[in-house]
């Protein structure tokens, strides 16, 4: 490199931050296998095959064997969980514990580039765990149609629509992250249970349905199932996609703001 200083190209600096995250992950990916691969597979096994054996295919399961009906929703649930956990403690820790973000922004990397890289990193983690789950679950016959690959980008979007808000929260809290526990228990878990994962929300009382409509998970579930099994008109699909994109953009903008506030010198 020439001795005359020259700012790094924006794309290159995003790439550098990503490479940093990847270097860590390359060494420690084994630690994530239990939570991001084995847990969803066991969940699918217990609920899809075990509990599913008690459920006769019918209109509720779109006339499909229960495990086939459940499998795409578990993909979306997994994506949301991975996105949320990757955006919570790791982000808080980079501000608070190892203070990596301060080190990074002390170089020519700007705050915007850092936020972009962190966002892309979460997306990458979600894609990787989603594909791994898809591959193994297919071996057990939980997926029947190759169109399920279309459900991957959908589930990533649903994950980011939730994860970006967690990222904004992580950039805001200054304690040891107690807020995450509450968000996981009072938002993530109920969302995973009620937003159309196990059955269409028409099984639930009418008053509770709007609560499901608000969650990114429900839109993700609808889209992921439609991607594999068909039956959705373009306008409805566009509506779901628009909502997820809007949520993602909103969360990302808020996270960006919080990053700027916290990294201000």
């Amino acid at each position, binding site marked *: 490199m020439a001795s005359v200083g020259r700012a790094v190209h924006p794309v290159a600096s995003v790439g550098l931050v990503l490479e940093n995250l990847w270097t860590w992950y390359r060494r420690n990916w084994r630690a994530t296998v239990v939570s991001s691969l084995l847990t969803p597979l066991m969940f699918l096994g217990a609920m899809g095959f075990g509990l599913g054996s008690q*459920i006769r295919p019918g209109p509720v399961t779109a006339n499909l064997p229960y495990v086939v009906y459940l499998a795409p929703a578990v993909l979306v649930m997994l994506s949301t969980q991975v996105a949320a956990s990757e955006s919570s403690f790791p982000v808080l820790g980079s501000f608070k514990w190892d203070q990596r973000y301060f080190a990074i922004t002390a170089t020519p990397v700007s705050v915007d580039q850092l936020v972009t890289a962190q966002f892309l990193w979460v997306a990458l983690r979600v894609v990787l765990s989603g594909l791994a789950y898809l591959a193994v679950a297919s071996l057990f016959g939980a997926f029947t149609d190759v169109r399920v690959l279309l459900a991957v980008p959908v589930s990533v979007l649903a994950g980011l629509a939730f994860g970006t808000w967690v990222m904004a929260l992580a950039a805001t809290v200054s304690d040891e992250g107690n807020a995450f526990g509450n968000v996981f228990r009072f938002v993530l878990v109920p969302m995973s249970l009620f937003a159309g994962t196990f059955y269409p929300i028409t*099984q639930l009382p009418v008053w509770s349905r709007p609560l499901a409509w608000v969650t990114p998970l429900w839109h993700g579930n609808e889209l992921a199932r439609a991607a594999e099994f068909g039956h959705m008109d373009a306008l409805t699909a566009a509506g779901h996609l628009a909502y997820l994109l809007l949520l993602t953009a909103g969360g990302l903008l808020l996270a960006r703001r919080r990053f700027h506030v916290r990294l201000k010198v």
Partner: protein
Amino acid sequence: MTTQGLVLRIVPVGSYAGRARAVVERSALVNRRNWLLVASGVFEPLFYLFALGIGFGAIIGNQTAPDGHPISYAAYVAPGLLAASAMNGAVHDSTFNIFLKLKYARVYDAMLATPLGPMDVALGETSWALLRGGIYAAGFLAVMAALGLIASPWALLALPAALLVAFGFAAVGMGAATLMRSWQDFDLILLVQMPMFLFSTTFYPITVYPEAIRVLVQCLPLYHGIELMRQLTTGAVGWSALGHAAYFLAMIVAGGWFTTRRLGRLLLT
């Protein structure tokens, strides 16, 4: 200073000073700040109960109680969730929280610099965990009763049974916590706890499995906790309930013995 306090400061420390309640008091004071997270323990099993019991009600047909009479799916899954949440709470408290205090916060080193002995610490921590578990179980049982999912006065024994299950898992969990080297080892705990929660007939009858797997499932502690609870809340109580309870007594004795031995070695040398 009281005479008792003075005596405790002068005589050489044993492993038990009879002051376990000071440890319980400490836990209560610490958790006052974070009551929402403590209270949230009540909700998780309830979310599952509503999602599975209510939502699936129309899709899944009747199940059978331990004595063979038909019961609704909600009445079937509720005792399973009660036992499973006793396990989850006890394991979380006795592994994650204990390890944090043992290795990082060094709370126990500080405690042992006072008249408290390792036995006080073990008893106090277990009592706190059981106190919490008892509140959760009582809340869950109250909701079950309100939903009409309790079929017999035997269910009154479900509360002590939940404490027994929690005590058993806490004793073994604490023993495991003293063996852990780093946070990575929690994956191993999760790897035991997660399949047990999912596959120990919490959500569906054991008849789903082929014979060989059935025997395997019947060896798991949670299976016995769930069977015990299911007998009590459906009123189909038989002599086998004593056998299920004995499994947990054995866990308490073995886990308690191992934990006290390990804690003494870890903290007093």
